[in-house]
């Protein structure tokens, strides 16, 4: 059998799950979660089948293509529903369906006590379907469908606990901010249409050579805007922190491992365009670098464990974007870091979830402490994830992040130096805040006390269904990096898509590694000095100006609130007024004036026969005079 026909099934399986679970009604409540997990697993299995099949082929014919049907056929405009499965997509497919399946599994335990669990799994499946569609689409418009699809899923899942106004608001915010990014994507597509007459990957990317750099830059920037929205990059990052309102598995899957990395995918996928537009690339790197620091700083200040991790996610994706912005030097490492990050960040979030699970959903790390005794498995897996992310030698993060820093320097020129040092600095901060999280949560003495209702949390280890995924992910986060890097496996694997080229780094790999190690140690020891040695106050100290700003996402939200929300409200309110008084007023005004005229003319009809006679007489006179005048002129 020819395997490309399987591609559609990758999407179809979870989509079917979503449809069944969402329309199925209560009768599915008992089996719903298993069904959902099963279908996720199915698409993972199919992914594996395709993967092995792909490995069996030679590099040239590895890219598969499946054309389902012509979607929007209009004069001069041809949109198809067609899939393209090459090494890049394959990587994502495995990551998404794999991690996805694990998180389904995890959720079975995590959402046990939620009576709307069936719907939760429906949404999760919907997300998988959309995300797979996103990475499998063979043209930008279909990608756009997946793009908005994951947006919808994330909207539904963030707002899953809709009775909490905060959740509903966070969901809305996420969707809206993403819409701004989507604007960029749709404009990019329009530009492609007017420039190339199509928006399918192959023709577009091949035609880049024939068009002006200006056009490419425009497209590139628009794509970057889209990426910023989806991947929570400055300036569109504000939604990610709030998105932590969603259930933790959601944060793990969508807001750490997969969806938020879609931006990186988009940029890498559109490599040819960016290669032709250096300015756009520069913009990408800048965004990446800025976010990298931004996220890291925010991560240092947050006491909410999930928000801290969210900050870290931002920052890590900043690394990827930075790498992607470096062009062919960086694409591979962007993706590689993406994958490894998928493992350890998912693991960290699941760990966090397991902690919260044991702590009555307490999220404030200052209310934790010394948990390693109570939940050993969580502690170990979380710890491995921690080591991975700070780039402890030998673990995944070490390889992927290291490469990115190298590549940054390899960009060459001053910007190379700047980017490189930013990346290094980021590594230091990463080490700092992750150590902080680690210490606050698992070390020191316990700081939790009874809540308002007086029932004190008694931490305990989570059920198997939760710990198993954590363990698996931990394994991934330990070995993936090394596995990929031995003999540059990953590089060669992606070669056909990314056309890797080794830049000429001013510094040798060894130097960079050395530097990384140094900053790593600095970061860790700083954190230790602050949170390890002396006891931590269970109420956050006021803190320095920077800290306070960082707690508030560096005031970026306040800015949004004042400028966009308030301003928008004023605008709409005044427009409502205008519509009522001006636009409507003009019409009513004319009507009224006619009425007034009528009232005045009416007075002439005063009831006196003689005045009527006068008007007749006058009329006759006018008539006569007018007639005579007509003759005269």
């Amino acid at each position, binding site marked *: 059998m020819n395997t490309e026909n399987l591609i559609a099934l990758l999407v179809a399986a979870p989509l079917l799950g979503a449809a069944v679970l969402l329309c199925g009604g209560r009768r599915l409540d008992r089996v719903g979660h298993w069904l959902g997990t099963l279908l996720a697993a199915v698409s993972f299995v199919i992914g594996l089948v395709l993967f092995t099949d792909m490995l069996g082929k030679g590099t040239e014919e590895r890219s598969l293509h499946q054309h389902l049907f012509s979607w929007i056929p209009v004069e001069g405009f041809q949109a198809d529903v067609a899939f393209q499965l090459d090494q890049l997509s394959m990587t994502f497919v495995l990551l998404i369906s794999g991690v996805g399946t694990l998180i389904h599994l995890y959720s079975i335990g995590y959402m046990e006590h939620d009576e709307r669990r069936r719907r939760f799994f429906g949404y999760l499946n919907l997300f998988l379907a959309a995300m797979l569609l996103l990475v499998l689409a063979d043209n930008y418009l279909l990608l756009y469908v997946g793009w908005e699809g994951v947006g919808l899923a994330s909207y539904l899942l963030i707002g899953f606990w809709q009775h909490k106004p905060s959740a509903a608001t966070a969901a809305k915010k996420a969707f809206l901010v993403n819409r701004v990014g989507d604007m960029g994507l749709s404009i990019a597509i329009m530009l492609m249409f007017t420039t190339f007459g199509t928006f399918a990957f192959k023709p577009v990317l091949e035609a880049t050579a024939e068009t002006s750099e200006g056009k490419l830059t425009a497209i590139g920037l628009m794509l970057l805007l889209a990426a910023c929205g989806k991947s929570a990059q400055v300036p569109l990052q504000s939604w990610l922190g709030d998105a932590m309102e969603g259930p933790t598995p959601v944060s793990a899957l969508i807001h750490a491992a997969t969806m938020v990395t879609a931006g990186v995918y988009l940029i890498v996928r559109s490599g040819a365009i960016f290669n032709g537009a250096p300015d756009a690339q520069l913009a990408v790197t800048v965004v990446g670098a800025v976010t990298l620091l931004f996220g890291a700083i925010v991560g240092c200040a947050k006491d909410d464990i999930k928000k801290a991790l969210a900050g870290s996610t931002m920052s890590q994706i900043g690394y990827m974007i930075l790498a992607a912005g470096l062009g062919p030097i960086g694409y591979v490492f962007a993706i590689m870091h993406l994958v490894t990050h998928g493992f350890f960040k998912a693991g960290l979030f699941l760990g966090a979830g397991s902690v919260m699970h044991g702590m009555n959903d307490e999220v404030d790390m200052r209310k934790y402490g010394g948990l390693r005794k109570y939940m050993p498995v969580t502690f170990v897996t979380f710890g491995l994830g921690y080591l991975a992310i700070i780039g402890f030698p030998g673990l995944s993060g070490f390889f992927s992040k290291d490469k990115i820093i190298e590549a940054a320097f390899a960009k060459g020129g001053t910007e190379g130096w700047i980017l490189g040092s930013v990346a290094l600095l980021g590594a230091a901060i990463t080490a700092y805040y992750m150590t902080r999280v680690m210490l606050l949560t698992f070390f020191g003495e316990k700081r939790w006390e009874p809540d308002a209702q007086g029932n004190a949390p008694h931490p305990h280890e989570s059920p198997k269904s939760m710990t198993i995924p954590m363990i698996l992910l931990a394994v991934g986060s330990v070995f993936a990096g090394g596995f990929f890097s031995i003999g540059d496996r990953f590089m060669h694997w992606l070669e056909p898509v990314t056309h890797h080229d080794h830049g000429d780094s001013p510094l040798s790999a060894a130097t960079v590694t050395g530097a990384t190690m140094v900053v790593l140690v600095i970061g860790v020891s700083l954190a230790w000095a602050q949170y390890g040695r002396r006891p931590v106050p269970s109420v956050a100290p006021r803190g320095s100006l920077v800290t306070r700003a960082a707690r508030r996402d560096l005031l970026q939200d306040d800015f949004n609130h004042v400028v966009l929300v308030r301003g928008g409200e004023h605008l709409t309110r005044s427009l409502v007024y205008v519509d009522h008084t001006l636009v409507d007023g003009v019409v009513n005004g004319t009507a009224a004036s006619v009425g007034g005229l009528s009232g005045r003319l009416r007075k002439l009809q005063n009831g006196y026969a003689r005045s009527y006679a006068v008007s007749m*007489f006058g009329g006759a006179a006018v008539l006569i005079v007018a007639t005579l005048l007509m003759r005269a002129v």
Partner: protein
Amino acid sequence: MNPVNYLYLAALLFAIGATGVLIRRNAIVVFMCIELMLNACNLAFVAFSRLHGNLDGQIIAFFTMVVAAAEVVVGLAIIVSLFRSRHSASVDDASLMKL
């Protein structure tokens, strides 16, 4: 004598009649003014008839008189009934309907 003068006289009479209609209140008087206007017309007719040397004008004058008489019949009937129900023949009192 220039026949035009007759025309002027007729016009004058007509104007007087019309003015009367406009300024007098008593319905009877107003009505008489209208009769005056009709007679002005008669004068004009007769003058023109003479002028053109055909008799049409004079005949029309007779018709006019008959019409005038008919108007008197109808008019007086109406005015009298108005007078009887209002005890006043002033046209200005009859102004129930307005606006």
